[in-house]
């Protein structure tokens, strides 16, 4: 891996980032350890079948993508009064102990080369803290990326019997603001999200990625549940040139549950490598994975869904559905929904389909004098409905619907 490490990626760089942000020593140590580990770490696993690797992460040209000392973003964070929503830099003074206790507890910074790179270099990020018993309906994190590369880190900690709904959006800044980056260079966005759910807590984390077409994106979101807690993820991916997105839940608490809802819409020559994974590590846990995607032009999707039921995971329920709609002959959809089952007291199923717009439905609509393009667009929107229905936050659903409609126009 060492060949990919940049000259500017040095201990000095990492120390400068930490100093500018006046970070506690433990975090600097964590960053330096991650930096040092880069030499030995591999890129995230990608699926391989005879004769092919489904996603070519090796092609990421870090030399032209990453400029760690020139990171710029505009991020708006909103939340009600009784919930903490702060950039890390502002959170250390009051919540340093909570951050230290939870940072890296769910997501190992040295999990792979890209996570370590992200932890070593992140300059932006958000700490969300929901005290016991608080119901926070409306936390929003809207980020704009304004530099060649941007590394972001998000930590969500919820205490007992609290609930929170977080909506995160990431897009590229307007051209004027993005001038810092050379016009023809590719860009790199990395975001690591960790969710620590307390006993009987409810976390809903929605994320909408609509980055510019010259951006390479790596995101890893992972949550761990306690007893009776719920973590629900909603993941919308529309932008970026290459997207690698992993959304994962460790069901560590008895009677806990998770839902992972995904929607994607690829066009141009976009490559979307989208993964939803769940580990049932406790008793009476439930998981529901639902992903729907549309591919147009030369876009390609790679999907892996994993339902892993551990030896002690008695009375597990686990379901997965993945459906892809192909609008073009040049598109490609690869999928691997995996079941790994170690306990027989399990009810598990998965299904995956790939198909095109139904010719009969199209004919029916055309016979009702709807022109072909309108009819096709209506059918595509209709295809997303089962996913929209799972999104209980109106604002998020509206945003996603708007983006889908914009792409269809």
């Amino acid at each position, binding site marked *: 891996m060492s060949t990919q490490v940049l000259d500017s990626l040095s201990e000095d760089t990492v120390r400068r980032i930490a100093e500018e942000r006046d970070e506690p020593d433990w975090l600097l140590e964590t960053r330096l350890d991650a930096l040092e580990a880069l030499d030995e770490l591999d890129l995230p696993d990608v699926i391989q079948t005879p004769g092919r690797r489904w996603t070519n992460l090796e092609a990421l040209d870090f030399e032209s993508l990453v400029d760690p000392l020139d990171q710029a973003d505009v991020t708006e964070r909103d939340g009600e009064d009784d919930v903490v929503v702060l950039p890390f830099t502002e959170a250390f003074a009051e919540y340093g102990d909570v951050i230290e206790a939870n940072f890296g507890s769910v997501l190992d910074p040295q999990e792979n080369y890209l996570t370590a790179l992200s932890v070593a270099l992140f300059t932006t990020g958000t700490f969300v803290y929901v005290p016991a018993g608080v119901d926070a309906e409306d936390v929003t994190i809207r980020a704009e990326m304004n530099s060649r590369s941007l590394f972001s880190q998000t930590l969500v900690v919820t205490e007992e019997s609290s609930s929170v709904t977080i909506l995160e959006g990431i897009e590229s800044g307007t051209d004027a603001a993005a001038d810092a980056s050379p016009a023809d260079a590719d860009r790199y966005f990395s975001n690591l999200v960790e969710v620590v759910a307390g006993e009987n807590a409810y976390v809903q984390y929605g994320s909408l990625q609509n980055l510019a077409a010259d951006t390479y994106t790596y995101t890893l979101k992972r949550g761990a549940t306690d007893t009776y807690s719920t973590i629900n993820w909603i993941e919308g991916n529309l932008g970026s040139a290459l997207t690698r997105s992993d959304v994962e839940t460790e069901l560590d608490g008895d009677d806990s549950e998770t839902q992972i809802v995904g929607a994607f819409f690829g066009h141009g020559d976009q490559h979307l490598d989208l993964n939803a994974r769940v580990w049932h590590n406790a008793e009476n846990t439930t998981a529901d994975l639902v992903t729907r995607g549309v591919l147009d032009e030369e876009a390609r999707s790679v999907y892996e869904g994993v339902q892993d039921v551990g030896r002690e995971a008695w009375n597990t329920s686990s379901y997965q559905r993945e459906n892809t709609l192909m609008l073009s*002959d040049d598109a490609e959809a690869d999928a*691997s929904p995996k*079941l790994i089952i170690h306990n027989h007291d399990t009810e598990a199923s998965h299904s995956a389909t790939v198909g095109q717009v139904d010719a009969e439905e199209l004919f029916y609509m055309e016979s009702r004098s709807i022109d072909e393009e309108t009819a096709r667009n209506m059918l595509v929107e209709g295809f997303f409905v089962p996913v929209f229905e799972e999104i209980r936050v109106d604002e998020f659903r509206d945003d996603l619907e708007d983006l889908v409609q914009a792409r269809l126009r």
Partner: protein
Amino acid sequence: MSSEDLQDTDTEARFEFKKEQKSAFQAEKGLTEETIRLISEDKDEPEWMLQRRLRALEQFHEMPMPTDWPGQPDLSEVDVDEIIPYIRPDVDVRAGVDDWTELPDDIKDTFDKLGIPEAEKNALSGVGAQYESEVVYQNMRDRWEEKGVIFCNMDKAVQEHEELVREHFMTKCVPPSDNKFAALHGAIWSGGSFVYVPEDTTVDMPVQAYFRMNSEGMGQFEHTLIIAEESSEVHYIEGCSAPKYSAFNLHSGGVEVFVGEDAHVQYSTVQNWSKNTYNLNTKRAIVEENGRMEWISGSMGSKATMLYPSTILKGRGASDNHITIAFAGEGQDIDTGAKVYHNAPNTKSTIESKSISKDGGRTNYRGLVHIADGAEGSSTAVECDALMFDNESTSDTMPYMEINESTVDVAHEATVGKIGDEDIFYLQSRGLDDDDAKQMIVSGFIEPITEELPIEYAVELNRLVELEMEGSLG
């Protein structure tokens, strides 16, 4: 052989007995160029076959062991240097024996116990029987021979049907470069069947080959080559078994099937290797326009199996059906599935896979469906169901789907479940005891598979499942 005859047979005794080892020629352990030359010389092979063997040996040494597949069986115990690659039993294999009574008593006795001669009389068009590395018995009904159907052992085919073999043997279907064990097979293959069905010929009774591995620490590497010309039809059945010894055995067979235009080939097998056998096979079919390939397989025995029969749908309108059942008990790792390449328009495939795991056994469905760009109008449906008995066992499903074409219909479904308490309660309330109830549920679970098998095999499969279940339920 009627189903009653089979039910009266003690299936355990049929498979687990072993014979004292007697052989006319036995190669040294391990794999060297010298061994390959000796085997080839012993078989009096043409030079081109020796050269193919030597090239495959080189490829075998160049290729790494497969170790990095997600969740694959542990092959660390497989040491080719510890394997006896070739044992010629004490039979004049070159002349060929077509009468069971001409076989040495111990070998005849083995096949009698397995019920092969009985089955031949009643239900089959022809039988080949392999003992260790060589086919010791081969017979084909006259009426098929008259029509030009060939069913003989592979070694004989190399001598007598050289052109056909030279063209098809490990060239375009399973080249030795496919994987390490295909290369191994290409180097030391011995025995197996050659089936040739001329144009417009329907062989309406199945032909069967039976492979018996008797010696300790040996490897069996039979090659099966089936060529079905345009508009022909044939059903080939393969059975195999080996008694259990303390040393491990290696079975690495190769199967190549050529399905011509409008032809139909069915390949059925119930594998019941002993639980110290590594079963690492490569089986593949190439199907021309409107041809149809069917794979029906039961994987019961072996310590570890890695087997993914694959079909290349090469011609427009070609189709493929896979029906598989895997049963893994204590200490077994059965990693099996199906591969289908849709390389032409309007091709169809269906895969139906059932697995049962208990007492710490592991079953894995590993499948690949590839729909190439240009294979418009193709469809595939994959269905996997797993039944589990306990939390010591593991059942995985790892399908891979690569779809390069938009006008297709692709569906994959998988379910995992335990035996329903309600179902058992219902059966118990009708007077069945717990064991019988579970057994009945398992039989019902695999019925969609057994009903596709010829009756003898369905009965055998059910008996094997019963054996696996006996005494281990509580």
